[in-house]
């Protein structure tokens, strides 16, 4: 049965690094799980917790927030703020019963197509292992 379950992932990718990284994965013809729906954002620092909550509310199995590596933010410090925010949000969601594995933060640069593909693959596998969220 587990094979048939395909988790749905929403990915918020920063325009400058991770979106380009995903693009790199595509143009390099790397294959990765088709479970992710990508939303391009200007910066990982733009990702409001509301956006993440809204995804979970509407039945998403996992949310990926991905931005430039610390130190490389196009806006200098957006991802530092994102890091604090999602460290806390992940703990909090886990406490509310949305397992911490369901919110993933990864730093992916424009040249890391491989890392992006691997991230999606491993996230998908991990979510498949967790199974569907009970209430959706």
């Amino acid at each position, binding site marked *: 049965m587990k094979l048939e379950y395909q988790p749905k992932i929403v990915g918020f990718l920063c325009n400058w690094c991770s979106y380009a990284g995903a693009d790199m994965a595509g143009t390099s013809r790397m294959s990765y799980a088709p479970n992710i729906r990508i939303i391009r954002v200007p910066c990982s620092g733009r990702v409001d917790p*509301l956006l993440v909550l809204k995804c979970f*509310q509407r039945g998403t199995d996992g949310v990926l927030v991905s931005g430039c590596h*610390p130190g490389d933010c196009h806006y200098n410090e957006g991802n530092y703020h994102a890091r*604090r925010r999602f460290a806390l949000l992940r703990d909090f969601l886990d406490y*509310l019963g949305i*397992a911490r594995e369901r919110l993933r933060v990864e*730093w992916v640069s424009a040249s890391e197509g491989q890392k992006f593909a691997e991230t999606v693959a491993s996230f998908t596998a991990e979510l498949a292992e967790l199974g569907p969220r009970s209430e959706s």
Partner: protein
Amino acid sequence: MDSELIHQIGNQARDLLESGTVKGVIGYERASDGLTARPFFAYEPAAVERLIFDETCSYNLVKYLLDKKDEKMAVVVKPCDSRTINLLLNEEQIKRDMVFIIGVTCPGVVETSWNHKGQTLQARCQTCQLSKPLVYDFLAEHEPVERLEGELYLDIQEMETRPVTVRRAFWLEQFERCIRCYACRQVCPGCYCPECFAEQLDPLWMGIRIAPKENELWQTIRTFHLAGRCVGCNECERVCPVDIPLSLLNRKLEKEVKELFAFQAGLNPEELPPFATFKKEEKLGFEE
């Protein structure tokens, strides 16, 4: 009821009103049950006769300063409430010179509801670390107050050890009861957005349905917006008409913020709150 304390508060309030230093004094008076306290606004010197102070004065009156920004007000502030003053100063919601703080030492307050006065101190008082307000212009004090040392987060830790599915079920059950009366927001001194996300129509974050999913979104984001800002006055939990254990949410974030960022809201009006700053070297559990 400590009549000496009331005497000191009353005298100070009368002086302030008679001299015209302040437009009004925000304090406590006896509620209509003749037993508990309620907030009271004294605008005339004669009205200070109605001021009281006792173990039923759990209200955090600092919230009211947000409605009175244009006029200088005096406010009665317990040690715990003084953290709210610092919070609002830090966030530039109040001006120090527009507030006269009548600090008061406090032996703790009990759980109250209309016509009911509890016997034991509120949980937050049992672990209160403050013997007097952090900031005040006048201090009404009588007997020295002893501080108790207690374990702050036993209930949170207990919740953390439950399986994630059990926590899920627990919280959904709590949120199902929510009727979205917004009393938790209205009473909260940290909730002062001119337009709350809950009422925003464009973008529409929260649907009109008063139903578990919307309620969960409400309570989750409400709490998260107070991360590193909640001063633990616990007024939200006190006013909740359907007994949602909101302190289990607020104090979870308080605990995490303390552990992750070594920060506690309202202790210092100058210190940057955790989401206004960062440390380049911190990893916070995310691989680089």
